[in-house]
């Protein structure tokens, strides 16, 4: 059931009326929620950003879903990045200042996995956007035309469950 919903989400997203750029940016923003530990202030801000900006929300949730297992897999790497950053002598002044500014500690930036994954997402944001945009454009040009004639594809597309996000589809 979960797999079906995921497939449906992928199909709806990739074939929505949004431009490849809107879908790709939605997916790149959604990657933040998957790559970084979920219950953190920065994810609320990224979610709000995805709502306010005219990006594909379906793409946002798809990007989130795809990034979750990647986040789990890369946690040791994120921990190493965070440890290196938080332990860097040159940055001690910055961290000490941030640690004692009202509000900033609520972001949990002082946790190695949170900081490491967030920095990794920031670095990957633009490359992810470019990659997703290229893949979606190619998909629509070469694959979608063949897929939409398939019976399975038509069944999946017809489901009403996917209409939950219709309001937000660009």
């Amino acid at each position, binding site marked *: 059931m979960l797999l079906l919903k995921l497939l449906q989400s992928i199909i709806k997203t990739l074939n929505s009326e949004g*431009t490849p750029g809107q879908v790709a940016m939605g997916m790149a923003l959604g990657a933040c929620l998957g790559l970084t530990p979920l219950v953190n202030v920065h994810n609320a801000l990224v979610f709000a950003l995805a709502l306010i900006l005219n990006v594909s929300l379906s793409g946002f949730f798809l990007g989130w879903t795809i990034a979750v297992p990647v986040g789990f897999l890369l946690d040791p790497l994120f921990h190493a990045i965070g440890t290196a950053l938080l332990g860097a002598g040159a940055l001690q002044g910055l961290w000490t200042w941030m640690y004692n500014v009202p509000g900033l500690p609520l972001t949990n930036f*002082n946790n190695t996995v949170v900081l490491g994954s967030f920095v990794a997402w920031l670095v990957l944001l633009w490359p992810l956007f470019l990659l997703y945009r290229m893949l979606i454009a190619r998909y629509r040009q070469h694959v979608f035309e063949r897929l939409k004639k398939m019976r399975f594809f038509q069944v999946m597309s017809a489901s009403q469950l996917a209409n939950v996000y219709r309001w*937000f589809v660009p």
Partner: protein
Amino acid sequence: MTIFRWKALGPMLGFLVIVIVLWTLFIDHIIRKTVEWAGTAANGAEVDLSSATLHTFRGRIDLGRLQVTNPKAPATNRLDIAGMTADIHVAALLEKKANVETLSVSGVRFGTPRARPGRVVPPDTSKGFFARELASFADRAHIPPLDLSGLARLTGWHGVSADSLQTPKQAKAIQARGDSVKTALEGSLRAADPTPAIDSARALADRLKNQNPRTLGPAGAVKAAQDVRTALANLQASQQRLTSLKGDVDRGMQSVRTSVASLDDARKADYQYALHLVHVPSLEAPDLSASVFQRMALERIQPYLDMLAKAEQYIPPGLRPRRTTGPKRLRMAGTDFHFPKEHHYPTFLVALAHADVTLGGTGAAAGTYLAEARGVTTEPPVYGRPMTFTLMRSAAAQGPDRIRAYGLIDRVTDTPRDSLAATLTGVDLPGYDVSPVGAHLALGKGNLEITLARHGEQLLGRWHVVSDSVSWSRLGASTSTGADPAEKDSTKIGSKAWVDALLWRTVSGLRAVDVDARISGTLRDPRIDINSNVGGALSQSLSRAVGAEVQRLQAQARADVDRLVAQPIADARAKADQIQSGVAKQVSDAQAKLDQAKADLEAKLRELTSPLQQLPGGLPRLPRP
């Protein structure tokens, strides 16, 4: 195409409202569960909180009844608080820091029964140095046994073998070392022998004895002066070598003399060894006091050391970035780095807390107390001030005149400083089984004074109890039941029956007891000195009974040791004198000869050069040697 999607603002505001509603509904529950979780982890047993109410905008939390299970008796509460009100610094919360400006605690009681036994959790093994050391503190403190059985063997002195004494071995080692020092120094003296330089200087002085610049002429005078300077340079080099050698000699002599001085300590150790051979027990009052009361003092001081250990576990010293394990979650926890800053909000702080404490019952401690604590924080260097607390009785249920306790825990710097002081006047003191003397001591009403200070690893403490209304009762197991008939003979000196009777006679007559235990040293190497009138009384009794015989044996043992060690010590001292009179004297003599030859040549040089300075056009520049 627009960049912003304004229609999303509605759902976002709706989401925000949901968050606020959830906060309002569940924050009290979250606080209650958090207090219970953190309290249980800190206490080692279940902590229950009946209610929690957060007044967000007023910055106030009201907590209901707090029950802290006693880990050693889970059916009772170690601490039971009727209610607490905390005024919180709201700005600090935005930095994830809990800063309580004032904390009012009411209805504090101890040892109350629980409705159901509390859950006990395994102890935290990641303790600090102090806590780790504390676990074995009592074992590290040597408690001398009160073993008077040696008195039974006060029949004579059978001598001691020289081979078993330390002093002769040490004296021989010193002699061997003296020989090697002497050989090395003599070799160095031969290498630095100044005789050729002295002889050459003397020969030159003799050759120039009757010469002067007029007889030598200008060229001859210049040549002679140059020869004198060369000879002086040789003498100077020899003198430097001798000075260096003298330093070696002094160091070698000092080393040997220090070793010789240590022979006195070795001889004292040999005295102790010899006395040990006949099992003559110490009859000194401090030793007997330690045997009788050291265990009791350690047991009474241990709870206060426990308090300091807890303080170290939760209040690490010094201001430095700390690392703790991140929060538990499905994802990897990671590590939380903390970056404290001086004079800012600490992670946890109770600036001022005051409580009314009631101790129930009819015991000596029953009554009401006023307790106050300041600067309770997990980061003293950030707060910048030490934690202090006071406790004093405001009204007594009965009896005791005064109970006062004061404490300071200073972790502002890297070196922890803790101190505790408590004075209890006119209280009913708990009794104690003094098993070394086979009696139970009921201390009755008396005074107790406890001080404990820690600076780094150094400890300094005192436990002083005074009572003039004590009573003694004999412990049942103390009567002699040995199979050996001699052990039942109370007339035989040193038999168990004799010892029991003597000890009981001595202590049972005492109506006043004064025990003064002083702790010093470190946790690794603690030292406990006990002074007590009980030890003094035992010492007098034993001395009266067996003192003359013990003193005779002690003198005999000392004389025997003296006889065996006198010659080796004399030989070692002679060896030191030999080095002093041999090599050291040779060096001194050579230095004197060098100084004389140098003085002669310098006088000659002045004689040769001064008239030349007055020649027209001055003296041609002489080449320096």
